């Protein structure tokens, strides 16, 4: 609470943006004027009382699609990030604490995966496996967890060389205690900031895949896909594709503003 009061304006704006998005996502069915797939008018109608933001390429209400899209897109990105974080930090911590051949093995595998551009890797997997929600989540989580692994390992290595970890080892503590009680609490500030960054990355990544037509499949509403579906409108001077694109940008800016503040705090704590 104390932290919030001292937080800079930018972080507060970020927090409001994120909270707003979360509330919309959770209460989507209550807020949205129409359902996800209901056709309410003509193709690419202008903004009106009937549909606040106009209609999309099939005459569905853009506002409602946007609200349901928040739900699908944010939930998907959140689950993926969680998965990538759990696996990335666990492996990273184990590598840092155990060292030796385990560390070598993990790190070499991760090096190889990271030597491959993420988007290309994902495209290749999707081309072979086909695109489904499960495969999407697992693929992105796996690719993203390599970044989490790198960071978690680096942070844990910094903590691992501290004498208090040696004290725990000399006491005879097991791997679990060392990871859970000695390293994790000290790694938390860096990890929280990284979670924000990874979420942004995953969120943008999914949006990009959807934009390329390889993410969530229609008729499910998601923001990247909505940009793609309505892309043709732009040449007619209709700005409809800009709206879901702006929604994506809006949320990521919000998260990044919070992350920036967190990184600032974390670096300040060391000095």
């Amino acid at each position, binding site marked *: 609470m104390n932290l919030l009061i001292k937080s800079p304006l930018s972080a507060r704006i970020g927090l409001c943006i994120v909270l707003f998005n979360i509330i919309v996502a959770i209460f989507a069915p209550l807020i949205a004027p129409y359902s996800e797939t209901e056709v309410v008018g003509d193709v690419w109608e202008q903004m009106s009382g009937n549909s606040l933001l106009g209609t999309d390429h099939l005459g569905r209400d853009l506002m409602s699609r946007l609200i349901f899209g928040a739900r699908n897109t944010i939930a998907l990105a959140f689950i993926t990030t969680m998965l990538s974080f759990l696996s990335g930090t666990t492996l990273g911590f184990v590598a840092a604490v155990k060292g030796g051949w385990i560390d070598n093995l993990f790190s070499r595998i991760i090096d190889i995966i990271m*030597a*491959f551009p993420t988007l*290309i890797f994902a495209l290749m997997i999707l*081309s072979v496996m086909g695109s489904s929600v499960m495969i999407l989540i697992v693929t992105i989580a796996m690719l993203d967890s390599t970044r989490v692994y790198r960071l978690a390992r680096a942070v844990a290595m910094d903590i691992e060389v501290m004498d208090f970890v040696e004290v725990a080892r000399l006491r005879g503590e097991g791997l679990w205690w060392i990871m859970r009680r000695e390293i994790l609490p000290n790694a938390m500030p860096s990890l929280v900031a990284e979670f924000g960054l990874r979420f942004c990355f995953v969120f943008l990544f999914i949006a990009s895949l959807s*934009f*390329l*037509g390889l993410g969530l499949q229609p008729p499910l509403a998601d923001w990247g896909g909505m940009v793609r579906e309505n892309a043709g409108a*732009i040449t007619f001077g209709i700005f409809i594709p800009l709206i879901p694109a702006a929604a*994506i940008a809006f949320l*990521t800016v919000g998260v990044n503003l919070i992350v920036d503040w967190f990184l600032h705090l974390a670096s300040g704590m060391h000095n």
Partner: protein
Amino acid sequence: MKPVIWLILRRAGFGFLTIIVISLIIFIGVELLPGDVAEAVLGQNATQETVEAFRKALKLELPPHVRYWVWLTDFVQGDFGRSLANGREVSGLIGWRFANTLFLALTTAAIAIPLSVMLGMMAAFYRNTLFDKVISITTLSFISFPEFFIAYILITLFSVQFNIFPSMANINESMTLVAKLHAVLLPALTLTCVVTAHMMRQTRAAIINVLASAYIEMAELKGIRRLRIIMRHAFPNSLSPVINVVALNLAYLIVGVVIVEVVFVYPGLGQLLVDSVSKRDIPVVQASGLIFAGAYISLNMMADILSMLANPRLRQSQTS
């Protein structure tokens, strides 16, 4: 300290090894398909003949290790096999598109590198001023935006409102260089926005890091002029991290190009890759994936080698 040439050879060796492993992964990826590849790709209703043709195209009748070897040696010789979708030579599909992609990437690099290094240095020297803060917020926003958002904003502004640049970046052999540049300017600007944001932030951080060193304080206490401190004391030591930042972001550029090509319907390798993925045209996906990966790995490798060369300690250990 080991001589720098040895370190470079080792890094190059590792890069080469990575490419080999990546090619193996790309190859095995197809092998690991659940069930029969042909059925999975063509669907259950495929006729016997199409399945046979498909198997032959992928050389499925050979044992895996032989097939890998054949695929790899063919690839090195420029024979990427035939497309499943239209039966044409993959190399014919890829060649000129790859050249287009390189053209776009180079145009972007020519704008983005000087711009971001300059902005990064200025932000570092005038840190915590209004200039620095404005730059910081702007780049943070650009990092947060998806590429297509920036692209559509540029299109809305420059193609729809003012009609200066085309929204479709169509280029071909017969165009003059100026005409080509005119065509790719919007996609190049889009990429520039994204890449500059990353590159500039990292450059700023690298230089601030150097400016905080004890030897900078020492130079100030020796009564050296500010400009000389920057040029003679800060610059040579920032060179290595900045070069690293630049090369890493060029690698990023290679990937960022995919989405921008789709937005602007630019006839490049990225566009082809995305099309082939949705058609599940595996030979094309394999070939273009490997080319992208190769370019990415080479740039990463160059980043490391250049920053080794620019590192004063490593450089000196060779001369003395």
